[in-house]
């Protein structure tokens, strides 16, 4: 590809700040309410062991590869796939992931609006009502306050991304310590409740038979994919802003371990509280009630029962706000990059993306059925995104990625040959298995699986992702031509490139 002169840009202020920003981007609500729920429902300790193994062997290696893709190409997702795979035809893979991230911002911000509303209700005591399901239904359906909150939060996160590297670093610097503080205080409170030890015992009791269960391993994999961030482009986007000499392997390791640390801490903060207040059966029923059922109904009940519950409820909602806002700012910084690559100004690219995502998310803010549909479809889209990253790494050559890009003279963590297997064979196989497994499950639990308008139907997922893929393929060449000149020589990382967000 033709090489032209490009302007040099600034990167993250230090490797440590980049690692902290990566943790802040990865840690989301999935760590705090999904991981404890899934762990308790899938064998406790067996799930935790599977989660740690899958993260170390398959997911962190792919995140290292994605980080290397971003740093090597210095481009947003479409251009990154184009330049790394050395073919214009590959651009649509990046555009597809970009679309998934746009949809994620649109519906995920609705959750933050609910959380903000529940924070206000916790301060006033308004969430401690008898019929908590009715309260949640009224919040999540046809609620004008939620709609306004949703637009305000979207605007705030778009502004954070508009600030570029500074916005990313400042949000991580401020919100991540608050998140850790809140979760640690919650953990101390819940484990000291009478009866909490039963929860810890349940969580860390290992039945070796569960380690042979495919469901436990697939659930662990799902948690890794949906929480840590392979497949939604964050490692590629932040790799774009990492300095030539900062450490790829260590940064991704910190990201993966940081994500897991918060998830395990959340398990310790939530499960003992559920056992102490609801008993074993009540706790398991709460975990089976889904993310919304656990957070907005069961845990509200727990906070109602414990002394000083209002304050702890506030800490819980604040921790969720910190986790989700940093993730949304990160997602915004992913989606604005391709527009900046196409030569648009910082202001224009942020504004276009903010208007687009706000418009796409309004139906989710208005109706929980639409929200649930988007949640279901995006989950599968992220798995496909992770698969695409593995394909890109494989196309470039696993050994070449490891020797040329990861094991460079500036690294403090050398990868052995096992990395080739983990990132380019094991992870794509797991992603494919997970995709097929979720498709089979969705047919099993939903007799209406062939209805393309069904909330959780297989047909809606195939239709939405299929149409998106076809549109990306149709506009492939136009998007490929707009992604700017290639700066990757195929061997070494180029210096930082200014795309407007890192001036």
């Amino acid at each position, binding site marked *: 590809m033709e090489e032209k002169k490009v302007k040099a840009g600034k990167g993250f202020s230090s490797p440590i700040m980049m690692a902290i920003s990566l943790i802040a981007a990865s840690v989301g609500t999935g760590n705090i309410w999904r991981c404890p729920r899934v762990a308790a429902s899938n064998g406790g300790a067996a799930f935790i062991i599977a989660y740690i193994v899958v993260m170390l062997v398959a997911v962190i290696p792919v995140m290292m590869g994605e980080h290397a893709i971003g740093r090597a190409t210095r481009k947003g997702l479409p251009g990154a796939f184009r330049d790394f795979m050395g073919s214009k035809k590959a651009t649509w893979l990046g555009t597809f992931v970009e679309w998934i991230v746009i949809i994620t911002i649109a519906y995920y911000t609705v959750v933050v609006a609910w959380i903000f509303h529940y924070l206000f209700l916790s301060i006033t005591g308004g969430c401690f009502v008898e019929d908590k399901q009715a309260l949640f239904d009224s919040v999540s359906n046809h609620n004008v306050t939620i709609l306004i909150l949703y637009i305000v939060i979207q605007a705030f996160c778009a502004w954070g991304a508009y600030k570029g590297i500074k916005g990313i670093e400042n949000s991580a610097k401020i919100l991540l310590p608050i998140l850790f503080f809140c979760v640690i205080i919650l953990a101390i409170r819940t484990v000291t409740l009478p009866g909490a030890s039963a929860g810890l015992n349940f969580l860390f009791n*290992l039945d070796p038979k569960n380690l042979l269960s495919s469901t436990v391993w697939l659930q662990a994999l799902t948690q890794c994919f949906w929480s840590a961030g392979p497949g939604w482009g964050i490692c590629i986007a932040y790799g774009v802003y990492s300095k030539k000499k900062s450490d790829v392997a260590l940064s991704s390791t910190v990201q993966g371990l940081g994500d897991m640390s918060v998830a395990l801490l959340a398990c310790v903060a939530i499960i003992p509280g559920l056992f102490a207040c609801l008993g074993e059966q009540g706790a398991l029923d709460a975990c089976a009630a889904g993310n919304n059922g656990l957070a907005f109904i069961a845990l509200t009940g727990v906070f109602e029962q414990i002394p000083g519950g209002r304050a702890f409820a506030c800490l819980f909602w604040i921790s969720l706000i910190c986790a989700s806002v940093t993730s949304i700012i990160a997602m915004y910084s992913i989606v604005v990059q391709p527009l900046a690559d196409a030569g648009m100004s910082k202001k224009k690219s942020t504004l276009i993306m903010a208007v687009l995502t706000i418009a796409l998310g309004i139906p989710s803010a208005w109706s929980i059925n639409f929200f649930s549909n988007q949640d279901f479809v995006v989950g599968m889209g992220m798995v496909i995104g992770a698969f695409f990253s593995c394909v890109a790494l494989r196309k470039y050559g696993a050994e070449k990625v490891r020797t040329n890009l990861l094991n460079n003279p500036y690294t403090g963590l050398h990868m052995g040959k096992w990395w080739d297997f983990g990132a380019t064979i094991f992870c794509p196989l797991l992603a494919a298995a997970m995709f097929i497994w979720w498709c089979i499950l969705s047919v099993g639990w939903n007799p209406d699986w062939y209805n393309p308008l069904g909330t959780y139907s297989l047909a809606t997922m195939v239709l939405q992702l299929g149409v998106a893929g076809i549109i990306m393929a149709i506009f492939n060449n136009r998007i490929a031509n707009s992604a700017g000149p290639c700066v990757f020589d195929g061997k070494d990382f180029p210096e930082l490139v200014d795309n407007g967000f890192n001036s």
Partner: protein
Amino acid sequence: MTAESIILMIICLSGVWGGLIWAMLRLLHMQNEQGDQD
């Protein structure tokens, strides 16, 4: 809590948190080394 559960909890939490702290310190060390060379 049973002894096995306590041991497993300590192994899992200290393993992940210990790993995170080790990786952060290693990154900090590399950062300082890089700074010295620059």
